[in-house]
Every structure is written in structure tokens, then in C-alpha cells.
């Protein structure tokens, strides 16, 4: 008698008590389905959150000003952020580990050209912006340092704006456009970084020297400062160094420059997810425990019901080990089957979650493996007692059992 025979006997006995088996498996099914769905969703969420945090700006880190109230007057909440200049950008770009600096400001404007009108977001940049952000200029030129210094009223429009405001055959380079009733010269067209599916809703964006934005809109010349690290691994370290350098260069007293620590973020995110996983995991664990006890209970009932069968098997030569194995395999088959059904439900659940929410939940083969082995182990643990009880029956007393 091999394992396969025992397995077939086990399957047929499960099949012969369909309803009972399903009810018994329910605890395991729910437990496994819960665990796997939660793990799948958890992994999906984590992936999505890390993607959001890191993917767009994997090696860029913000540097911002932080006000520190003077010690003798901590109530003093009135401060002015120091002005940053192209010189500061130069200084920062020389900090070790810094590959590039992105210094920008923002403006909005109503653009009119060829009887078309549209509201445009304008980003003020320096020459260093183009290589740092990997901007592809498809027509004309990019911005020069001289454009900033000379306050040249020139703009680059993106491909979306080009399509909206210019005819295909028309050459936009050198054209004068109207922005908030002021003339600007188009010197280039750059590829819009927006993904294709979002482009038709947008009116497009444009880039212009940040000194011009500052002059025309009254903004500070540098509103947003980012450094890009040459090694993404050391981004937090590089950011800190850049912030310290800037603080020192500016000779600040009641303030300093800081960065967000990505490692902190990631750590926080991880603790949150592990906490959630722990919570759900313990709920699922209790469900599996209850399921396991259910299996044990039904196996004990089964042993009692089949006392005569066990007696007969022993009378025709089954050893204690064979009986033990048979019942153990039966309970393992029961729980593994429950586990498989649970995994199936979890897979369906994950598909639904992925379909109707932004999270992509995936049931990985590893989780499936762990799920099945886990249910099998539950089968072993909770099947041992009933199987042992069955194996210890004396053949003659078992046969006499009414």
C-alpha cells in the first residue's frame, strides 16, 4: 500500500461526505483566502506607494527652507525665506555626489496664438534643467544661461501645445506668441513628458527662463530646489550634504535648509505595512486555528464512525503505521484541498481588487506554495491526534464496535 492508494482512499472518503467536508474546510478556506488576499494587496500597495515615492524622481531629492525661531524669542513667527540665485545653483552642483541641480519657479498664463486660446502652466528653469530632467528638444533650441542672465523673453512649448496652437506645416520657431497680453518668442519645442493617453485633455506646458518668470509674475527666482544624486543609493546622504552646504553658504541664523529623508519614509511605510500584515495575519491565524480544530473534530468523528472499517483493515493485515498514515493523509488532503480552494478565492479576489481599485494585487507562486504547505501542516498537526487514536484501536474491539 503506497501513499497514492492512501490518497485515493482519502479522496473518496472526502467525496462520500461532500457537505461535511466542505463545512469542515470552510475555516481553512477562509483563513488561507484571507491571508493570501491580504498579502497580495499588501504587496501591491507597498509596490504602488514606493513607486509613487521613488519612481518619478528616483534620484532626486527636495531641498527646502526651514525656519528656526530665535532662541530669545521663540514666539517670533515672522520670517522671510532667503532668495536663491543661479550662483547658489552653481555652488550646489559642485557638492560631491550631486549630479545636477533642478531650480524652478512656476507661473500660469493665458496663451493666445492663431485664434487659439488656452491656459498654460509655465515652469521657469535654467540651462541645467534640460540635461538634468532629460528634456528632449525636438525643434529649435533649449535655453542658454544667457537667456536667464539677459532676461530674454523666450519660451519653449511642449509638443501638446505645438499641436494645439500651430499647424503641422507651420514652423513655430521664431514665432511671437501672446501670453497674458505680453509677447514672447518661441525658440524651441520639447517632447511632452506626459504619457500618450493623457495628452488630448491637456493644453500643454511651456518652459521659460526663471528670471523672466520672476520679473513678469513677481515670483521668487527659485521656488523649488532639487538635487539629483549621481548614485540613487546615496540620495539621502547627498541631499543632506547639499542642504548643509547651502545653509553654510547663505550664512543663515534663524533657519536652515533640510531634505526629506527617503529612508525615513521607507522605514515608516514598512512599519505600517508590517503592522497591518501582523494584524490581519493574526486574525487569519485564529481563523486557521479554528479551522484546524474543526478538522480535528471531524476527523475524530470520522474515526469513531469508521471504527469497524479500521478493525477490518487491521484484521486483514493493516499495521498501526498504515492506519495512522491513512487518516493523516486524509486530514492533510482535506486541509490542502481547503487551502487550494482558498488560494483560488484569493486569486479571484486579487483580480477583482486589481480591476476595481488602483492597487495591483498579485498572487505570486511563492504565496501559493506557502499557502498549500501551510494548510498541509495544519492537516498534519490537527490530524495527528485522531489518526493516532485510530491506529491504536484493537482490531477485535473495533470489529465488535456497534
Amino acid at each position, binding site marked *: 500500500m503506497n501513499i497514492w492508494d492512501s490518497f485515493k482512499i482519502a479522496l473518496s472518503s472526502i467525496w462520500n461526505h461532500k457537505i461535511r467536508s466542505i463545512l469542515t474546510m470552510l475555516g481553512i478556506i477562509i483563513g488561507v483566502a484571507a491571508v493570501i488576499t491580504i498579502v497580495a494587496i499588501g504587496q501591491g500597495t507597498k509596490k504602488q506607494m514606493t513607486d509613487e515615492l521613488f519612481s518619478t524622481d528616483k534620484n532626486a531629492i527636495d531641498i527646502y527652507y526651514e525656519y528656526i525661531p530665535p532662541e530669545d524669542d521663540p514666539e517670533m513667527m515672522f520670517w522671510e525665506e532667503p532668495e536663491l540665485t543661479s550662483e547658489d545653483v552653481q555652488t550646489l552642483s559642485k557638492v560631491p555626489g550631486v549630479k545636477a541641480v533642478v531650480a524652478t519657479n512656476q507661473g500660469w498664463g493665458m496663451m493666445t496664438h492663431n485664434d487659439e486660446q488656452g491656459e498654460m502652466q509655465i515652469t521657469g528653469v535654467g540651462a541645467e534643467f534640460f540635461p538634468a530632467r532629460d528634456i528632449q528638444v525636438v525643434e529649435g533650441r533649449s535655453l542658454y544661461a544667457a537667456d536667464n542672465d539677459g532676461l530674454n523673453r523666450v519660451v519653449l512649448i511642449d509638443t501638446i501645445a505645438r499641436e494645439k496652437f500651430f499647424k503641422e506645416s507651420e514652423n513655430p520657431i521664431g514665432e511671437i506668441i501672446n501670453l497674458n497680453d505680453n509677447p514672447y518668442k518661441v525658440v524651441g519645442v520639447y517632447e511632452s513628458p506626459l504619457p500618450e493617453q493623457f495628452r488630448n485633455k491637456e493644453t500643454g506646458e511651456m518652459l521659460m527662463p526663471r528670471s523672466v518668470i520672476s520679473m513678469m509674475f513677481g515670483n521668487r527666482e527659485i521656488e523649488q530646489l532639487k538635487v539629483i544624486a549621481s548614485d540613487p543609493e546615496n540620495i539621502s546622504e547627498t541631499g543632506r550634504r547639499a542642504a548643509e552646504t547651502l545653509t553654510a553658504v547663505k550664512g543663515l541664523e534663524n533657519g536652515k535648509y533640510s531634505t526629506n529623508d527617503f529612508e525615513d519614509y521607507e522605514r515608516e511605510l514598512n512599519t505600517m505595512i508590517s503592522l497591518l500584515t501582523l494584524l490581519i495575519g493574526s486574525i487569519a491565524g485564529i481563523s486557521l486555528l479554528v479551522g484546524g480544530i474543526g478538522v480535528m473534530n471531524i476527523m475524530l468523528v470520522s474515526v469513531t464512525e469508521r471504527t469497524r*472499517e479500521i*478493525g477490518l483493515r487491521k*484484521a*486483514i*493485515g493493516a499495521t498501526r503505521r498504515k492506519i495512522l498514515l491513512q487518516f493523516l493523509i486524509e486530514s492533510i488532503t482535506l486541509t490542502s484541498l481547503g487551502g487550494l480552494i482558498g488560494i483560488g478565492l484569493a486569486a479571484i479576489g486579487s483580480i477583482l481588487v486589481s480591476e476595481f481599485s488602483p492597487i495591483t494585487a498579485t498572487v505570486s507562486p511563492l504565496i501559493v506554495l506557502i499557502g498549500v504547505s501551510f494548510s498541509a501542516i495544519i492537516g498534519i498537526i490537527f490530524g495527528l491526534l485522531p489518526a493516532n487514536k485510530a491506529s491504536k484501536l*484493537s482490531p477485535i474491539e473495533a*470489529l465488535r464496535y456497534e
Partner: protein
Amino acid sequence: MMKLSNIRKVYGKGSLEVPVLHGIDLTIEDGEFVAIMGPSGSGKSTLMNIIGFLDYPSSGTYELNGEQIAAAKETTLAKLRNEHVGFVFQQFFMFPRDNAIKNVASPLVYAGVSKRERTARAKELLVKVGLGDRMKHLPNQLSGGQKQRVAIARALVNNPTILLADEPTGALDSNTGEQIMKLFTQLNEEGKTVIIVTHEEEIAAYAKRIITIKDGLITDDRRVTT
């Protein structure tokens, strides 16, 4: 050949002790046809179960073919049950969801015989006991006599030397009982040692040796000469 010496059996423990066998000495040669008789409660089934390794004596020795059986060694007893004896019960005892072939073949599963050979052996024996046309029937589709034939085929499937039957005709009418006894006679003539327990003189009359037990002791042991 089997040799039982001073076999005693006590059920229960302490104040609940029930002594059933009080020292049985019994030797049965290969090829014998023995009937064990005696009043109800005298210990016939207890003795049969010990002979068939379903139970073990409280004291005394049991030699099979010159070898002493180490009492109460579970695996040894299971192997002996599987290989050396075939047991037939009054209540037939079938696996209710298995057809005749599977029921007959069941001991071979524990002997590690391949499925194909199991089926072949089972079919052969079902033909031998006259059930060639009932092979695929389930136990509840068979009459009592037919079930007992299936049980006999099952007892024979491992080709044991000893066939044990505890009141095999007890649940059958006299006509069917006679047919079963004819089958046992035939098997004995083919060389099997047959030991049956019975209440009925007519059934015992098929045997060549009749042992009578009273209160756990052998009171009579006579050979029938024809």
C-alpha cells in the same frame, strides 16, 4: 503446524478481571479440518482470535511452524494476519462502498501487491467461490450467502495456510450454510488448514476433528473417522 501451550486470557483489570481461558493446550497439524464447539460464553471466539493473531493471550506460548510468536508485537501480528491466516466472520464485514473485487483484493493492498495483480487474483477467487457473475456488485447488492463467499475469497486472497471462521454460517439459513460448508470442505481437500467455530452439530459434522470447550478449558477433543 500450530502449537498452543497453557494459553490463558483474562479480560479487564483489577476487580473487573474476567478470566476467560484457563490454560488451553492445543496442537493443530497442517491440513486439518477442526470444529470448535461449546456453549455460549465458553471462550470459543476468544480462542479463535488468539489463533488468528487478532488478539494475544495474557500468558502461555504460541508456536507457528516451530517458531514462537512474540506476543503483542503489533507489526508482527499485523504481518501474520496478512500472510498466514484468512479470517471469516459471522457478520461478514465488508467495505460497504467497494465492489466485490475490491473487497476481495483488500488484504493485498497491505501486502504491497500491484493493482493489476490484485484485481487478477480477486477475480480468480471470486470465480472459485462461485461469484463470477457478481464481481462488480456492492455488498448491499449481495445476499448473505454471497457476502460470505466474498469474505471467504478475501480470506483466501493472500494464499494463507490457515483459514479461520467464527460461526460462518450463523447468519445464514441452513441450505446456504451447507453450501458454505461444502466450500470449506473443498478448500480443506485442497490442503488448507480449516478451523471453524460453531454451535450446530450439522455444521461441526463437516469437520474431521471436533474440540469442545467449556468454561475456558478443552473438555473434549475427538477425531471423526470415516
